[in-house]
Every structure is written in C-alpha cells, then in structure tokens.
C-alpha cells in the first residue's frame, strides 16, 4: 500500500489546482502535485507517485532503479499500475 511508483511529469493540466499529468511506464493520468507545490516542479521532472499524489521528487536514475525493482514485483506492481490507470481525476 505504501508503494511509490516513479512517474515523469509530462504536462501541467491545471496549475491553479496543482494538477499535472504524469507518465508511468507509458500509462498517463492526472495526479495532484499539491504536496510538491513549492518545489518548482516542471515538465520532464520525475516524482514518486503514491495514491494519486506526487510525494517526493526523484532524479531520473532513481526513477529507473525504482521502476526496475517494482517490475520485479510482478503482480503487485501490475495491480498498482492497473489502479493507477483505472480512474481519472
């Protein structure tokens, strides 16, 4: 449940409401970036996504390592990704 999955910010959807679109392994959805509001987050940056929120900034290398680790988890990662893409804000 505490899984954080790495995503890359691809588009600011609604700056006023802190919504941005992130790409997680090719799956895109809108998440809240409210928790990183004062960190100057911009398109192309990598974040850890948890329950629809960007919870921490990470660099590209960390994103790749974490992703590789998650993919080894198999079904749980698939579930997380499925949930990630199954709903939209």
């Amino acid at each position: 449940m505490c899984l954080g999955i790495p995503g890359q910010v691809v588009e600011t959807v609604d700056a006023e409401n802190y919504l941005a679109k992130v790409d997680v392994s090719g799956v895109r959805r809108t998440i809240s970036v409210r928790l990183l509001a004062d960190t100057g987050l911009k398109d192309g940056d990598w974040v850890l996504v948890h329950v629809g929120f960007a919870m921490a900034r990470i660099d590209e290398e960390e994103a790749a390592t974490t992703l590789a680790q998650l993919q080894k988890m198999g079904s749980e990662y698939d579930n997380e990704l499925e949930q990630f893409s199954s709903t939209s804000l």
Partner: protein
Amino acid sequence: MKFVDEFRDPAAARALVRTITELATEDEYKFMEVCGGHTHTIYRHGLEHILPDNIELVHGPGCPVCVIPMGRIDDAIWLAQQEGVIFTTFGDMMRVPGSTGSLLDAKARGADCRFVYSPLDALKIAMENPTKHVVFFAVGFETTAPSTAVTLVRAKQLGVTNFSVFANHVTIVPPIKAILDSPDLRLSGFLGPGHVSTVVGTRPYRFVPEVYGKPMVVAGFEPLDILQSVQMLLKQMAEDRCEVENQYSRVVRPEGNPQALQLLNETMELRPHFEWRGLGFISQSALKVHRDFAEWDAEERFSMPGIRVADPKACQCGEVLKGVIKPWECKVFGTACTPETPIGTCMVSPEGACAAYYNFGRLHRDTAIMVGERAAL
C-alpha cells in the same frame, strides 16, 4: 543464477555481505525494519538467508493495513451499510476481516463499497453522485495522510458537502516508542521507514539513539539499500556511534516535506489515544479530522457503534507486529490463515509479514544459502 537477476549489482551485494559479516562480531544482532515495504523486499529477495546467522531481521508494525483493529473495520462496515452511503477505500482494506466478515462480504450483501486508487477519486465520486453521501475510509501512516489532507482542503474549497472521511491515519513514532518500551524484545537497532520519512524527515527519530541508545538508519526499498543500511547500523555499533543516519538520502530530506506537514496540521489533529491491532492503545498515535473540517468528518456526521472487539483467539498478529514471533510461528499460519482466507490482518496486505512470508519466504532459501556461501568465499 537467480541471485544475479535479483540484484541490480550482484558484485556490490556480495561486497556488502562480506563487510557485514566482518563487522558483525557479536553473537546476536536483532534489527527491526519498521516498514512493511522493507519486510516485503526482505522476503522477496531472501535477504534473511543472505545475511550471516547472527543477524536477525525482525519485522515491525509499519504495515498500515495490518494495524487497524477489528472494531474499526466493524465501524467501516456499519458505515457502508447506511442508507444512501457509497463507501470507498483502498483495495487492501476491502479484504480485512471484521467480526462479521470484510467490506467485500458487506458488498456481496448489497452495500455500495468501491475501491479507489486515490482519496481524490472518492471526492470525484461524491461530486458525480450528489444525492448520495460518499465516505472515504482513510488509512495509512504519514506517507498517505497528506493525500487525505489535500482532499479535505479540496472538498471544503469546492463546497462538496456529501463527502466525509473516516480517518484512521496512524503516526510512526509512537509505535516505535511502544516497542522500545516493551520488555518482550531486545533490539539492537532499527531500519527506519523510507516513504514515511519523505514526509516527516529524519529528525523525529532522534529519540531512538538519544533516549534509548539504539542506532537507526532510514533505508530505501531496494535489496541493496537494505544490505547497505544493515552495514551502516553495524558500522555505527563497531565505531561506538549511535545516531540517526539516512541511507535513502536520494529521496528523504532531513526536514521531510514541510508542505505536507503543514497541510496535515491544518486538516488533522492528534487523537488522545488509538487502538492498534495487537499493540493495544497507544496515546497520541493517530490522527482524526480537525475540528475546522468537522463537516467532512464521518465520525461527526454518523454515530458509529465504536465497539471494541477483541482479536480472534487464534490470531497472533500482535506478536507478529511487535516482532516477538515470526509469521510461521503463528498456529494458523498457512493452514486456516492464508492470503485467500485471512484470519489476521498481516495476511491481507502484501506488506504484511505473514503474506510476504507466505508468498516468498520459502522460495529463496536454497538459492540464498548458496549465495551466502559464495559471498563468504
């Protein structure tokens, strides 16, 4: 060899195991990993078998699904059964047994229970169903609580009044303290939680070395992170240091996430006490919705039964959560209690020690023993 696929850098892993073996000169070390994510990594990669025999990894209480007591599940089910309520929560919570079954069972009996990925999804359901009342069953440590906080702020901002939160957020420091105060267990040190610390930072753990004289290393989730953190703990002990160190500094900042902490302060307040499954009542260990947000507090809007229910007799989740017994030492482990038919919470979430051990624990023993021998060469 399996080991090679499992680790990003097998050479680094071998080198770490070698240093760990050299540093671990005492007869016995017991390190507790507080976080369920770590438990998962440890079992999945068979780390306990790679480490030398005198190092034991003890699993802690940091699985948010595991620590919710039965009475709270019963309250959740009661809420889900109220007329006009759409009850929403994270997937794992749906399967946690209450005294009369789980939320999934309630759903089968006709209650409108829905999985959501995010609390914001629950808010969206409320906006789409203005004639219904949507309750979000919020669980999680400080990792997850800020997302509930943002959702509360958003609900207020948008004036969504058919939405409320049944808050069961817990905080990480009090259970660590409770475990340190309990006479059951003699720990040598802690692997500190990774993602919780992205929010709270590393400062709140200072009491662990300062008051209890135990080292703590905040650790990442990769197998290599865990091995490195164990090495850092041993190094502190060998050098007669005792402090909080941060192995996961690539993600965790000492000050945490001030933005998230501020939102938590605005939207939630500490409960005087909260019951944890197996650990009993711990004071100031959980968050409730702040009185400024009372309109969005399910506990204010509904009069839930709030009955305290004892854990099933057969269930030893309490001992597992305190690290007093290993999952397989529970009498019902793998027989009456399996991930398909959980009796206790630790079998429900993939981060629960029982589920993690059931799923992977036994797989790795042979490979890991082989690797352990190779690393020792």
